[in-house]
């Protein structure tokens, strides 16, 4: 009987040892940070379905606003870039949960956060994906393989198209028509491990290029127009 008890005790110790060795003692210290995305039109919060005006004074009602965020890295105090494991997120104005992204990062101080707006070309040529990249999310072109990096849709009395709709589906990953943009944001103060990032829709219409709804109501193919939009949305992010 004693022998049995000893065996049980020893095996418990042995199993316990496994539990310890599996814990993250050997891993470098890490912490979680939360990125909170806010979408706005200038200083005004974006509300889907509300009548508003863009920076060019054009009346509009935004109905959809979605974009991919991926490939995060942080820049430490010495300027060294720490690349985080590759992850893809679809930020969708219509889905509040999608606007909050939690990342696990090394427990170091950092001055900048960098990421891609869009889906890198590698992922565009790797077959079907799941999760945020699932083709069922409506952000994938089936007739010309590739992701829609960002999507903005709505109505405007100035849009000369069916239903007065403007439809901007911006994509293209190949050389020459690439719409993925690298975003680099200086991070000054972080409270409660939260970083608030603002995306200003106005930049779509007036930034590097001026794109009026009255003149351009539709974009749904890779090419020069998509590039113009991409060069514009490259400037839409700022730290709040």
């Amino acid at each position, binding site marked *: 009987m004693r022998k049995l008890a000893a065996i049980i005790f020893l095996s418990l110790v042995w199993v316990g040892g496994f539990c310890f060795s599996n814990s993250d003692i050997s891993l470098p210290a890490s912490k979680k940070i939360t990125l909170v995305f806010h979408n706005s039109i200038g200083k005004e919060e974006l509300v889907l379905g509300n009548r508003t005006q863009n920076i060019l004074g054009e009346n509009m009602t935004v109905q959809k606003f979605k974009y991919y965020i991926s490939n995060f890295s942080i820049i430490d105090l010495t300027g060294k870039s720490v690349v985080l494991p590759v992850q893809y997120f679809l930020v969708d104005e219509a889905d509040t949960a999608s606007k909050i992204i939690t990342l696990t990062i090394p427990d170091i101080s950092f001055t900048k956060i960098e990421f891609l707006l869009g889906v890198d070309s590698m992922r565009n040529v790797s*077959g*079907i994906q799941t999760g945020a990249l699932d*083709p069922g999310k409506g952000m*994938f072109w*089936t007739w*010309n393989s590739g992701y829609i990096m960002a999507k903005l849709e709505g109505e405007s009395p100035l849009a000369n198209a069916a239903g007065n709709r403007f439809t901007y589906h911006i994509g293209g990953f190949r050389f020459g028509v690439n719409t993925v943009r690298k975003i680099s944001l200086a991070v000054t103060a972080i409270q409660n491990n939260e970083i608030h990032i603002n995306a200003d829709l106005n930049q779509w219409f007036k930034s590097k290029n001026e794109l009026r709804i009255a003149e351009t109501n539709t974009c749904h193919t890779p090419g020069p127009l998509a590039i113009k939009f991409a060069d514009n949305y490259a400037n839409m992010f700022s730290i709040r």
Partner: protein
Amino acid sequence: MRFTKAIWILFIILITAAGWVTADNFIFKPKPVKFIVPKGWPQPLYDFSKNPLTEEGIALGKKLFYDGRLSKDGTISCGSCHQQFGAFNTFDHPLSHGFNNSLTVRNAPGLFNLAWQKDFMWDGGINHLDLQPLAPITNESEMAENIETVISKLRTDKEYKIMFKAAFGDEMINYLRMGKALSQFMLQLVSSNSKYDKVMRGEASFILPEQLGYDIFKKKCISCHTEPMFTDYSYRNTGLPVDPFLKDMGRMKITGNPADSLKFKVPSLRNVAVSFPYGHDGRFFSMMSVMEHYRKSMVIGPTTDSLMRNRLPLSNFEIGQLTAFLMTLTDSSFLKDKRFAEPGFENNGKAPADLHQ
């Protein structure tokens, strides 16, 4: 005391047995299938390590391929427009029939030797075999279905649950798995057993017109219709003027580059005799009309292929011999292979009665 001991032993046995009975005894062990590269062929481009072939995966892919529920009205399957007796093209149809009396805008290409193909469709718009089925499923003039709806239809089906579990380890049904299973089936469609192949393997010999045709072929056709696939998978303008109704600009639709205007993928000539009509929009009724086009009716424009700028001079004699050679590319064992046949139609694979030559 002895009695207590016996009870304890019985109790332990009972517990163990109960545990065994209630546990999920499903052991995920699909049977691997080896992909055989025909002798003398290049290595396939498809990355099998990301989608290992298994008997269960192939069986699931075949069921999906022949399932009309992938379309909006439940009647159009992949197999509706990709018929085995036409080397998986739409037999004797310039354009295929889609949802609600619609017609497609291009001729359905035959499906075979897909593991060696890099891009898909006449314009090369699709860059991975796993993604290809999403295009016809969602196209309004083809299966016209929403991909979300397809998945939810499959999820309600008991048989699919069992088959997805057998192929992938659990009952989860998603696009990724659907696409992979369809690829596994389509990758099986290897056509490498025509008379031409037998001659190359030293198992048969050409009769004189076939041999003469092969010699002419090697002089005049082979730079684009490269052996052993009988295509180099490039995009070329071979002087087909744009159809005023279809207004199909081909590869330019994908690249946006005017230099790609009116360029379409070079089709393989394997099984060419059974895959009429020809051309990206099926405008050529017969092989004869294709050759007439090459020697007489080509429209030379700024993007016409440099090899074809003087059209392709062919004498009547040459056309006759070439036709004899092209007939040797028909792989009847592929066209009748029961493994690929629509369930219930395994014995119906027969040479079509009406060949357009």
